[in-house]
Each structure stands twice: as C-alpha cells, then as structure tokens.
C-alpha cells in the first residue's frame, strides 16, 4: 500500500517543537500581556519557533520598530519578526490592532463579519475590549449599539427573576407567604402570656413533605447538585487569586459562579450540572467581572449566565450521556478530530492510532469537552477562546482545527515516541506559543478548503 507522502509544507522546521532544556529567547511577541509573560518566564520549556504574523494582517501595515530578525535556521519566511527577551508591553502592531478594534466597536452598527475576523487573531488584552467583544460574538449584545441598554436591562432583570424564583430558600418562601397573608407574627418576649395559636397546613407545604410540588422536597433533592457545584467551584483555578484567594472578593466571585451554575442546572433538568461546567464558566466570568466599566462589572453575574448558556448550547450534547454514541455526541466529535488528523497528516495518524494505539479518547475528550481550558494557562486560554468564539460556524469547528494543530505541532515527538511517552505528552501538552498555534490551525483549515 502506498504510504501517503507527508506534505512538503508540513516538513518545514517551522512546525516542529524540539524540546530545548535551556530557556531561549522569549518568543511570544504577540503575547504582550504581562501576567502571561511572567508565567512564560517561569515555564521550563520555551519555543524556538519563529513567530510569523498571521496571514491576514489587514490591520497592521506597520512593522514593529523593535523587531529584530531571529537567529534561527528556518527564517526564510518573509515578514517574520521576533522580539527581544523582554518584549515591550505593546508594540506598534498591537496599537494599530487595538485602534482598529476600538474603531469597529464604537461604530453605531457593528460589522460582525469584520469583528469576527479581527477577533480570530486574538484580541488585545487591554481592559474592557475582550468583555465587549465576547458579548457581541456570543450574541448577547446585538450589533446595533443603540439597542444595547434596553437589551441589557431586559436580560439582567430576567436573570434576577430566575434567581428569585429558583434560588430562594423554602424558609424564605414560607415567610413571604405568611407576610402576604397579613398574619401577625408573634413576637418573642413581648406582651402577655397566651397559648400560641396554630394554623392547620396539612395540605400545604412543610419540610417533611414528600409531594412532587413541594418546595421543600425539590430543595432537598437539589442539595446533592448544590454540594457538587460547591466542591467544583472551590477547586476552580486555585492558582488565580480572582477565584481562590481568601478575600471577600474571591468569595463573592465563587458565590456568583455557584449561583449561575445552580440556576443553569435547575433550568435545564435534562443535563443538570456536570463536572467541568465550572471550567467553562470561569473564563467568561473572569473576563466580564474584570471589565473596567462599572456597570458591566457589577452585572457580570447576569451577563456571564447568558453567555455561558449560549456557549454551552453548542456543546450541550457532549454532556448528555445517552447521546455519547450518537451523531451529535462526544464520540463522533472525537472521531471527526481523528479523521481531520488523518486527512492532514496520515503518517502521524497512523503512528498514533495504529502503531502506538493511542486512542484519541484518552486525550481529546478533555480537550473538547472543556474547550482546552485545562491544557493551557488561563491567560493563554483567553486568547484561544477569542479564536473559538469568533468562528462564524460555531466554536466546535475551530476547536477541532486547533486540536488538530496541537497534534501536528508535536508530531516529531509523537512519531518518535511510544504509547507511554505519547500519552504523557498529550495529557500534559507542552506550553506553546498560542498565536503560532492559532496560525497553524488557520492554515490547516484553509488547506481543507482546497
């Protein structure tokens, strides 16, 4: 059988990530976010891939003045540039992209297509932009700026209504009923002696009621879900103070996340709460809560709820066990990824699945269901999510493309490795230059259309 030749462009050293033990020049020119660079300086491995600007740089005609050509063998690609080991906080390219984005965002009617293509190359990390762009991309805010305030008001009051309806404790409900009926509550330690009068409520609600319509009964049934949510939220991102510090800010953030997940679980009795939903909520809530705009930040909970629902709606079927083996289930998504890899790189696919028998389920399951939140650092994830959310066909297509790119980028090591080392590599994916990853994913995708 004729082995399909590895395509030429794939063989260029551009794709491979040799594992250098020594830290090399900090390569993430486009990762100008300072927390990210601090984190990357702590990483043990650094990529030596030269950074090529993304193909469709309509926004940046100006090269970074501080660019220096990299001392790398494979530097024949035009337009490449690299940064010195301490990248300036924002280069000219960033400024122009930011300016372009801000211009786009301040229009009266935002051109969604333009916004999507801008976002697909990663948004700048300056405060406020990501929050607004994500809200637009997820359809929470309409493209017409004038409708924003009314939309927001309506959605936020709807969320408040949900919370009142679903999250009130049964005690609270009982007392509201009592007050509404105008009963006079006895005051302890006041007035005369008397027998306390009782009202018969056999047919109404009481804590030990086992009736289906009983508020108390549903409350006790939800306790298990509440405990699960509580446990998961407490474990979310323990390294990021926003989520897990001892401060009251972190605690209120955790409370908000718990509320969102609980309201979602109660509104969607079909899938309830599944472990991992907290990981999908975390970036959304983080971005919205850190919006410098007071109004947005204080309503982050309500906004995050709707955006979370919107994002999850594309992936709902992955969380339903009965749908696992169906056409829309997680297995079919994993199969699709596998087919994608086979299409682009038969040799790698063959080596992975047949020679070393690394079943894609072992690594792709977590990649897909958690939208890559567990594979990269939190701030890198935000960049990846920019690309995911900007896909007009829905995040799943981009996701599969990025997963395929992830495999292709480490192909040298995968092909050289056996089952154990491949599994280890894929389950602890090495830190990569995110913009490069996105570039590769884009390239693969455009190849598919040929």
């Amino acid at each position, binding site marked *: 059988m004729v082995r399909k030749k590895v395509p030429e462009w794939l063989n260029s050293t551009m794709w491979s990530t040799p594992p250098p033990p020594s830290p090399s020049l900090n390569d993430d020119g486009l990762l100008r976010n300072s927390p990210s660079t601090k984190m990357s300086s702590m990483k043990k491995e650094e990529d030596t891939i030269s950074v090529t600007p993304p193909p469709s740089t309509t926004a940046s005609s100006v090269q970074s003045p501080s660019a220096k050509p990299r001392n790398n063998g494979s530097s024949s690609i035009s337009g490449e540039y690299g940064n010195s080991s301490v990248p300036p906080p924002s280069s000219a390219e960033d400024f122009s992209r930011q300016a372009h984005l801000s211009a786009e965002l301040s229009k009266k009617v935002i051109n969604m297509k333009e916004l999507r293509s801008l976002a697909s190359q990663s948004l700048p990390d300056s405060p406020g932009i990501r929050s607004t762009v994500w809200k637009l991309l997820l359809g929470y805010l309409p493209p017409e700026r004038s409708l924003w305030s009314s939309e927001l008001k309506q959605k936020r009051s709807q969320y408040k209504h949900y919370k009142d309806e679903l999250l009130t*404790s*049964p*005690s*609270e409900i*009982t*007392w509201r009923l*009592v007050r509404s009926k105008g*009963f006079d*509550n*006895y*005051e*302890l*330690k*006041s*007035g005369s*002696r*008397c*027998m*306390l*009068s*009782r*009202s*018969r*409520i*056999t047919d*109404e609600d*009481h*804590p*030990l009621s*086992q009736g289906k319509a009983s508020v108390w009964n549903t409350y*006790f049934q939800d*306790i298990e879900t509440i405990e699960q949510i509580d446990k998961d939220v407490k474990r979310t991102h323990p390294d990021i103070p926003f989520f897990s510090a001892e401060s009251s800010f972190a605690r209120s953030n955790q409370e908000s996340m718990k509320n969102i997940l609980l309201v979602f679980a109660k509104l969607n009795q079909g899938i309830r709460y599944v472990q991992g939903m907290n990981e999908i909520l975390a970036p959304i809530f983080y971005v919205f809560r850190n919006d410098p705009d007071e109004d947005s930040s204080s309503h982050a909970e309500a906004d995050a709820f709707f955006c979370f629902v919107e994002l999850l709606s594309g992936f709902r079927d992955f969380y339903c066990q009965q749908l696992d083996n169906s056409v829309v289930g997680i297995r079919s998504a994993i199969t699709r990824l596998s087919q994608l890899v086979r299409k682009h790189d038969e040799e790698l696919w063959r080596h992975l699945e047949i020679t070393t028998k690394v079943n894609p389920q072992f690594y792709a399951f977590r990649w897909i269901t958690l939208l890559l939140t567990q594979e990269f650092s939190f701030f890198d994830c935000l960049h990846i999510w920019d690309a995911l959310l900007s896909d007009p066909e829905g995040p799943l297509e981009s996701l599969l493309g990025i997963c395929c790119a992830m495999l292709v980028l480490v192909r040298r090591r995968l092909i050289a490795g056996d089952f154990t080392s491949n599994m280890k590599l894929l389950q602890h994916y090495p830190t990569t230059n995110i913009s490069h990853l996105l570039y590769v994913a884009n390239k693969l995708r455009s190849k598919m259309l040929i």
Partner: protein
Amino acid sequence: MVLVLALGDLHVPHRAADLPPKFKSMLVPGKIQHIICTGNLCIKEIHDYLKTICPDLHIVRGEFDEDARYPETKTLTIGQFKLGLCHGHQVIPWGDLDSLAMLQRQLDVDILVTGHTHQFTAYKHEGGVVINPGSATGAYSSINQDVNPSFVLMDIDGLRVVVYVYELIDGEVKVDKIDFKKTSTSNSAP
C-alpha cells in the same frame, strides 16, 4: 435555614413498640440538622435510630431512661436562638406554665422544650416560648391514657422560627404551623 427536630417520651419498649410508620416514613436522613429529645426513649436502640436521622443529637434524662448518663438539662444555641431542654418531670406541678417559666429564666433561653405530659402545647410568656412536643409514639402517660402521637419540627431562619407540629390523628398525619420571631439579638446584660 436550620431544621431542628424536637420529640420525646417514646417509652420504647415499655409502653409502645415503635414510632408510627407514617412518622418513620417522613423522618428521612439528610433533611434535619439537629435533634433535641426531651427524654424517656428509653433504650439504646431508639438512640441509635435517632442518630441515623441526624448525627447531631441532644438528649436529656427522663425518669425511665435506661442510660443514666444523659444530663438533667441542656442548653444550646442554634442560629440566633438559645434553646433549653429538660424532660419536665423535675418541674412541679407537671406542665404548669409558671414553673416552666421559672425554669426558662433559670436556663436563660428563648425557647424551652420540655416533655413528660405527652401532650403537645406551645405557650408564650414574657420570658420566651415553651414548647412541648408531646409523645412521638403516643405512649400513655401517668395522667392521660389517650395520647395522639406528635412531634415538632422547627425551622430556624435568622430571627424567625416556624414551628411545624406533626400529629397523628385517627391514622392521618396532620400538620400545624406556628410562626414567631425575635426583634434582635439582645445581648443579655450580666
């Protein structure tokens, strides 16, 4: 929102075999945070059964209890309320409000829970509230042969308490409700 179960005077096995099945079907574990028991269980098996409903169990000694280690009275704080517990055979005349009010002032509690009369009552006086959950098995008492099984569930939520009274009358469970509240946490001056 704390659920506290108050019951007592079961007199198992001497005067009753067990709690009524309708009560047992309602008392499932996981719902109740505390149990306060006025005494006269009388045997360890009932103690263990109550422990399965809720691990936080407080019992005081009734005159027929086989375990002599239970205290005569007990006080505990749940939420904003102080609760006092005593079997009641020590308070003479049995079931008399004035004497019970004296005991309540002695223990300095907002809600006093006592038993012994095997009759549900709920009184209010200047010092607070006195609740008698009755007999959970409907065992006869020295003063009353015909007793309806009853127990009490209190829902303590902040400064408010809702008392649910569960009684078995003619084979059917009847539920009553009493609400009362406290004005504020008054720190008692020494």
